[in-house]
């Protein structure tokens, strides 16, 4: 089985940033994959399946994050998360 690393740079676009509910959704999506997933902000690097760690990034609107996955489904995992972030976690804008 081939183990590969894949990473993508994404920007938080939703106005409320990576708060509790978006973080919850990220963890839910990340948990669907087998790869090890990490999210980095600057030099901080946290486990993509830990909501508490994600929240400690305090990623506001406009923050650049690097999503990095390592494992057989690394690319699909990173793409799924990048899409979730790009679609503003499917949140309504009036929040």
């Amino acid at each position, binding site marked *: 089985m081939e183990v590969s690393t894949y990473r993508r740079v994404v920007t938080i676009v939703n106005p409320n940033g990576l708060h509790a509910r978006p973080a919850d959704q990220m963890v839910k999506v990340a948990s669907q994959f087998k790869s090890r997933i990490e999210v980095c902000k600057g030099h901080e690097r946290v486990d993509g399946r830990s909501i508490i*760690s994600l929240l400690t990034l305090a990623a506001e609107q406009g923050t650049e994050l690097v999503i990095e996955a390592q494992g057989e489904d690394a690319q699909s995992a990173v793409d799924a998360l990048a899409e979730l972030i790009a679609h503003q976690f499917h949140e309504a804008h009036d929040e």
Partner: protein
Amino acid sequence: MQKLEGIAVSPGIAIGEALVIDREGGHIPRRFLPPSAADAELLRLDGAIQGLAGEISRDRDAVAKELGARYGAIFDAHLQMLRDPILRGELEQLLRERHFSAEYAVNRTLRRYAKVFQSLEGSFVAERATDINDIEKRLIRQLSGQPRQDFSKLTSPAIVLAHDLTPSETACMNKRLVLGFATDAGGPGSHTAIVAQGMEIPAVLGVGNLLNEAASGDLVIIDGDHGNVIVRPDEATLAEYRRRVEHQESHAVELESLRDLPAQTGDGERITLLANIEFPQEVAHCLERGSEGIGLYRTEFLYLGTTVEPDEDVHYRAYAEVVQAMQGRPVVIRTLDLGADKLTHLQALEPERNPFLGLRSIRLSLRHLPTFRTQLRAILRASVLGDVRIMFPLISTVMELRKAKMILADVCEDLEEHGIPCRRDVPVGIMVEVPAAAVMIDLLAPAVDFLSIGTNDLIQYTLAVDRTNKDVVNLYNSCDPAVLRLIAQTCDGARRCHKPVSLCGQMSSNPIYLMLLLGLGLRQLSVSPSAVPEIKQACRAVTIPQCEAVAARVLTMDNARDIKQFLREELRKVAADLVH
């Protein structure tokens, strides 16, 4: 580092790890389990996590049904936090590698996360700290279905932090393990404070927001001299306090050299220095420090921390132990001074609206005669073992004193009839601690063998200040001119009747007041055992004419602040190292 201010109630410095007793009454013991118990503890933790997950899911479903799925989703984030793999990993590690109890691991880990969130100030994440706190509380509640260890059975030394501690909780503390304590509630003169002094545990009360700042396991300094609590001190502060502890220890050695010298003023007036005690074990402290007797033996400890009424033998053993250890030196035993904040099985079932003005102390004794007689029998039996004296607290009328003396005489006769040895002529005295007693001193003094001024209650009743209410505690002031006039009046009244008078409140333990008290005519003081050497040093540094001049001047002054300032300056002139 967080420096918090409170009220210094029991001197000394303690440095150690915090044990937080939660404001809801549940406490998080620092508990170490045998390594073999880790699996069972982990199971217990997982059970609690699952139980709470079930609870939160039910909350979510209920809210979703009521307000729509978007609102229910808030609880999804809570569930996700609860199931956070990193959190679970950390908890497991604390359980397996450091052998923490599940409660303690949850408390430490989640409080730390809450702190991290809070530190992200200005960020939306800071608000999530409340979620973390909520999860911590609920998890601990889940865990508390299991029996928890009582803090009186602590296994490692700690500093106890709590919203409030009752006197009985304080009395249950093991002095070797409780290095010091601090509470958010309470104030000077409260019985918790007195118990702390009795046990010589450094303590700070009335801090205010202790529980928000400190978590179990934090390093904490209790500065019982200045009323500070320092949470997570930095290196420099810690070093400074360690230096002060060393200094205090060497100062104590210095004062010890005074032990065998008489308490005598510079001009040769002999002062009798007695000690106030709470527990029989304290007699050793008194003798070590050269006290000449026990001026106040509080007997409430017999009733605190127990739900059954102590019988005559329990009383007798406690009195006999002290009287024998004092080897013929005077021992003033004060009868039951319970009521108000000291709870007991004796108390009226209905809570009193004004406990301090209610059925307490001698009033309670006169109402519950069997209890009173039991105590008097035990005191009288112990009276043949040494120099025992009986003191009635909170006397406010001449009638009350007569009743109490009648019952005493009756108990004495009873003992004699049964051929039980006791002394018929045991000296009887009263505490002067209700303003009415000071006012009526000319009629009360002739009816007793001695008087003792209890300043703690006298101040509270004279100034109408609840000494445990932090909003008015600033009015509770030993130097208030009204209080000082009542003390002066009591001293005069006693002198006219040639009756000895002493002072046994906390005021006598502070060297600042010594010149004033001697100047008012007091020649006998009863102080906390730890204060004996300092007060003796102060006595030896002054002369009676100096003291009389100070007292005369003070009685012309009109406010407590000026008086205290003046007393401080006067003491500085004669013994600068005693001015704290």
